[in-house]
């Protein structure tokens, strides 16, 4: 049975194996490779996307659970070529080293800031995405910078 959903604001239809995780649909079928594979068990967060706006580990979400929902990937975060403030803050704080986990980190951070507009260090500590390069201190700075930027814009 076909599964209809929204991917980066475009309607799409999938009619393959409903058990296939969303991650592999994104990478192998939609060829959106910004979402990364790290563990396959929903632990490391490299595959984090937004499902109806909430950060979700796409390697453990079967396609059968995606029907009728909105999927946003790192490729869909900027709008009209304008970076999301979290993406911009990531550049300004020079967060990335190898960069592999950063798409997942950014998607998780956007979700955090959406839920908690002025996140404390304790709030940021709830993020469990792994970074093997050790970029955590600059991630914290980037999240604070993006949150401040967003709060200025809202005022």
């Amino acid at each position, binding site marked *: 049975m076909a599964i209809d959903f929204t991917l980066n604001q475009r309607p799409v239809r999938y009619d393959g194996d409903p058990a296939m995780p969303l991650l592999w649909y994104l990478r192998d079928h939609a060829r959106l490779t910004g979402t990364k594979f*790290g563990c396959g068990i929903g632990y490391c967060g490299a595959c984090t996307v937004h499902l109806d706006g909430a950060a979700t580990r796409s390697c453990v979400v079967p396609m059968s659970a995606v029907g009728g929902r909105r999927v946003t990937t790192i490729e869909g975060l900027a709008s009209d070529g304008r970076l999301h403030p979290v993406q911009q803050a990531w550049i300004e704080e020079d967060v990335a080293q*190898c*960069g592999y986990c950063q798409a997942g980190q950014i998607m998780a951070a956007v979700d955090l800031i959406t839920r908690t507009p002025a996140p404390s260090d304790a709030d940021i500590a709830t993020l469990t995405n792994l970074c093997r390069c050790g970029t955590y201190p600059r991630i914290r700075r980037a999240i604070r910078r993006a949150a401040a930027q967003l709060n200025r814009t809202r005022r």
Partner: protein
Amino acid sequence: MSAVPDTRALSRRAFLGVSLSAAGGLLLALRSGAAGQETAAAGEALGAFIRIEPDGRIVIGARGCEIGQGVKTSLPMLIAEELDVPWPAVTVEQLPYGLVAARDPPGFTSLYGPQGAGGSTNIPDGWHDLRLAGARARWLLIQTAARVWETPPDRLTTREAHVVHPDGRTLGYAELAPRAAKLDLPAADLPLKARSEYRIIGQPTRVVDARDIVTGVAAYGIDAAIPSALTALIARCPYFDGEVASVDEAQARRVPGVRQVVRIPGPRPGAPLDRNLAAGVAVLADDFWSARKGREALRITWTRPSGAADSSAALERRATAALAASAKIARRDGNPDEARNAAARVVEAVYVMPLLAHATMEPPNALIDLKPKSALLIASLQSPGGASQMIHAMTGVARTDIEIRLPRVGGGFGRRLQNDFVAEAVLVAQAAGTPVKVMWTREDDLQNDFYRPFGLHQLRASLDAQGRLTSWAHRVAATPRKYRAAGMEDAADWVGCVDPDGFPAGCVASYLAEFVPVDFSIPRGWWRAPLPTFCAFAVESFLDEVALAAGTDPLTLRLDLLGAPRELPYRDHGGPTLHTGRLGGVLDSAAGAIGYGRKLPAGRGIGLASHFTHGGYVAHALEVAVSQAGALEVVRCVCAADVGEIVNPLGLEAQMMGATLDGLSTALELEITVRDGRIEQSNFPDYRLLRMGAAPDVEVHLLPSGFPPSGAGEMGIPSVAPALANAIFAATGQRIRRLPVGDQLKSPARAS
């Protein structure tokens, strides 16, 4: 990401030196001297690649493997500095692996110079030759302007991509480029800028791919695709040197999307591990998910070779017994036995270093397209030269017809110095007759690694009646690094496990460094700062134990031993000398920054450690708090680094932060164990990397010593674990002698 140029189309013209680029600009690939054997040429200044287009675009090629160490930014900075162009005007393009045939003597030489990533060598390797490449291009542009203006070239200067006439006239590089491309390169070396003239070197410079990374378009090896390639997953024998006893692939072949099932051979028992690591069965499918379902549907039985009964517990028993066996002497000064016999006091301790996996965030993978007379490899690599040699050896394709593209790499840490995953892709492609992308799961990765060796470090020191150190003996019983390691057959047994010239060698009258090899069948490899991380924990923890026994402050003990600033011989990687003043300098800096010696509340402590790593000097000072229940918190974390001339302070700070957290992550929780011949860990829940909540901020202090630069990727890790253990001791009185720390602070040992 920018397009990767085609090496083969480029190489012939570029080899000749200067030529017109496709768009009519200046194309420069610089060479010095005659082309020799590839190995001979690797250490010579060779060249880089610059393109100046008529539209003003200045394209600088990045030759290295970008594994997160920042070379795609820092190496082009060196070229841009001497080319004298504004950094924002530069577009960086990743270069592929570049190889050209040489005639006299016959062999190969690299088009762009060294391209691997290992041993923190990219910056020291490029420091002279990449700046020279920029200077030569600038020289050509000046010569051209001199002809246009009919003015002697030595009267002309450059500024921001323009040649400037004494009367104020300027000519843009883009205008000059087409004519400059027709000139011959200067034969001799050119003078390089003095430090006071730097406009780019030393400036905080962001990662060139930052925008591509945050928008998800930066391409890694795992993202490579060619239309005809199938995706393969391999079921590997879980026992080292085991083989497929039987396989029933009928179910796997029925999985929708599965196209082929092929067997691949493993290494010959006892032979060097210069190809793939394990025998297995590969399932080729249209996509990852189908391949994975197919792999799960295989029914395989494996043979169990003799090593399949081994365990970590048995390994540690063997190593403990080995400490009492006769050892091979790596260095001996004075007479340690005599000093011990005459001593007022002897201090002794044994430290345990676990096996470690690399666990790069991007698991290994390789896409290969084999044709009868050519090959294309796209993969995340640290050793493209090794991959090129391996593909040639396995396929017979001429090395100059093997194209290797170098996408960004999702972490290296030494894992990808081995190209076993490339060998797998070749074997699968040969067996299946199709282009293939071999993918690894995290389980595949943790269970099929070249692990950091396991070892026991026995330290013995003697003190005289005044508490002065009279001898230092360091005996290592470990699984030798060279075990079945291709290219290390002739190395001494202790290479990679004993640091004969490391501090305090040369600072104690009687000194002994020894090695006892311990049998073990699991493969081992290079793991970030391989020798320093393996030795620093024991040496720098024991220095604190000696200080305690001597009634001396640990910092004072170290500085007294280091003595007057001088250079001591150091024969391992990073030598030929170790500068005691620079080591003391980073210690002083870290101690000063953390307020060493100040009074702390109960349950808190500060620990220090330093280490000389690959030519760089780093010290850590950590302040920890340990609760009554044994909960550990790193309250402050200071890192002081002297890696000589600083190319990119922003990138250098990132390397030190990252390595510090890598060191903390590893010291706190990481260990690979073996049971019944199999690796026990299978995914991140049982190989627990540090997470955000436990990661302290790292205060990085960069010391501008002005020495020529070492690299920076590895220097920041070795001193973390001992600084942590020394801080824990200061806080609790409990000495950690076994890594990882794990639950030791919560154990009953603490109460005693």
